[in-house]
């Protein structure tokens, strides 16, 4: 079970890194003849078996957005051209739309791959930030004890009670609504770190508070180690396992948080492909009924989160869903 989860996650990371090579089309290229086009079928038989090919799609009824394959002229796929694994030139009868096209005629599959870079990257950086802040605050509280511990723990508990999505919403809404994508990335990563650290800090505090009573810490202190050195070299490494466990909780939560914020229009602008902005395009459900491939990012999110949960369950812990 754990292995299946790890395979899923490894596949997700590989696909994310190799996105520009795997994507048949640039994510932002609009194909004006292919608005809401269904997925292109890759055929292997034309009378007899032959190399993989497609039939060009032609819009036969613009009112119903009905497409039909033009079976008179098969087009072979082009492998390893223009730095892409596989594509079909538009002049030959393309585009190759493995998961159909969206309302602007952009390739859903290519956008899905590029989206993974923003969505997963943001979740990863948010998680790292939350772990860093949480380890620092928790370590400080646990090591210092006394009034500092009391104040920090109270504050941690308070932030922990708040429903995260509302805080994220309020913080994001307090900023100007239109921002450049890079600023949004930094802003969201900071908000995620701000929301995630209390969960981490509480556990780290408990571990550090109990570890500091152990003999090796006393020995270190007797040898003249500074508190900073004790904390960073001896006490925080003891929390590594705990931190890894927390990361598996935070990562799915942050993927979802990005999707949610972008979905409601407070995340990335819709020119940036992320899983959230792609889902937002699927928010008009009466259109999606005729174009179900627009829900593809939901599948991508599901697979990544399932991968994480499989690893958690396989490691003998209980997967729970952090809000949202």
């Amino acid at each position, binding site marked *: 079970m754990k292995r299946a989860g790890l395979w899923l996650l490894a596949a997700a990371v590989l696909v994310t890194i190799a996105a520009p090579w795997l994507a048949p089309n640039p994510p932002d290229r609009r194909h004006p003849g292919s608005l809401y086009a269904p997925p292109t079928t890759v055929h292997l038989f034309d009378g007899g078996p032959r190399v993989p090919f497609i039939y060009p799609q032609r819009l036969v009824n613009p009112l119903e957005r009905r497409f039909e394959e033009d079976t008179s002229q098969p087009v072979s796929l082009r492998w390893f051209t223009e730095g892409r694994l596989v594509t079909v030139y538009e002049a030959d009868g393309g585009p190759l739309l493995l998961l159909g096209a969206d309302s602007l005629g952009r390739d859903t599959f290519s956008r899905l791959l590029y989206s993974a870079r923003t969505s997963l990257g943001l979740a990863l950086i948010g998680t790292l930030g939350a772990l860093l802040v949480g380890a620092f605050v928790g370590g400080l509280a646990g090591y210092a004890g006394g009034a500092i511990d009391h104040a920090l723990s109270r504050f941690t508990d308070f932030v922990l009670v708040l429903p995260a999505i*509302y805080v994220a919403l309020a913080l994001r*809404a307090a900023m100007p609504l239109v921002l450049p994508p890079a600023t949004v990335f930094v802003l969201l990563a900071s908000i995620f770190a701000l929301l995630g650290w209390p969960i981490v800090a509480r556990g780290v505090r408990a571990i550090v508070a109990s570890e500091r009573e152990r003999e090796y810490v006393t020995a270190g202190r007797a040898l003249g180690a500074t508190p900073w050195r004790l904390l960073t070299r001896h006490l925080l490494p003891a929390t590594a396992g705990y931190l890894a466990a927390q990361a598996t909780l935070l990562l799915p939560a942050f993927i*979802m948080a990005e999707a949610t914020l972008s979905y409601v229009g407070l995340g990335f602008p819709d020119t940036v492909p992320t899983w959230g902005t792609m*889902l937002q395009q699927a928010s008009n459900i009466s259109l999606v009924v005729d174009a179900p491939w627009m829900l593809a990012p*939901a599948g991508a999110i599901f697979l990544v989160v399932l991968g994480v949960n499989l690893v958690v369950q396989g490691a003998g812990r209980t997967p*729970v*869903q952090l809000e*949202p």
Partner: protein
Amino acid sequence: MIRFLAQRLTFALLLVLVVSSTALFLTRLAPGDVTAQLGPFASATEIASTRARFDLDRSPGAQWATWLARTVRFDFGDSFLYNRPVRGLVLSAAVNTAVLAVAALALATLVGIPLGVFSGSRSGAGAAVIRAMSLVCLSVPPLLTSLLLLFIAASTRWFPAGGMTSADATTLGGSAWIADVATHLPLPVLALALPIAATFERLQSQSMTEALHQPFTHAALARGLSARDVILRHAWRVSLRPICGVYGLAIGALLSGSFVVEFVTAWPGLGRLMYEALRARDIYLVAGCAAMGGLFLAIGSVIGDLLLAAADPRVRERQAP
């Protein structure tokens, strides 16, 4: 007991105060204000009068002081968006959210806990299937569930796709109106309840397995009690403790989850209202929604504490005066 209640009440008041005040200041200090809603052609006097109406011409501190003085008398100010007092708006939205949340929590409890007891006390195909289903449900957060359910509803027409009432609901009488809402309820409730039910199932299953490995269950079995009695009357009671601990947190998850579900399925609850208010910088509506959210959280944590005390005598002993 009285001391305990007083403590919780102080905590609740403090939570509501801090949350709503923070929301007020955040909205006030954010760039732009509610006058942007007047449009680009608003005259200077119009803008000035709107600013005066929402105390935006005074310092944030002074505004907070007047707001607080009115709030303790249960006057939460006016909403710009709806041009109505905030109190009525927030109350009706809160009722809608509460209906959704209570139904989802009940469903999650009724489905999750028995399945957890079953899968935690047995090994076999049934337990494995339940575990797999839970893992899948845990990996589909409310945003995805509600989108998928909406998609299914729209393509099969088994359920109305979104909304709380039909378009002609205002013409319906009392019982017909309730029936109308009831047909709209399953979709958002299901979307909200599935991940929580799965969380309950996983926790219950794990703590059940742990409880069954403890000496007292062996002792009970040795005394000749049936396995059924041991599981349902002895082990289950002990295994409830972690569930009760999570119940208080589940209320927070419900609030967060209900925001997404309300947004996707167009349920007129607190989440949607808060979102609209935040975007429009409708300052008193933001503060009112935040206060109501804080109240929900406080109620949730009290319920969690009471459940914990009910399930674990040690907690009761400690809190007794």
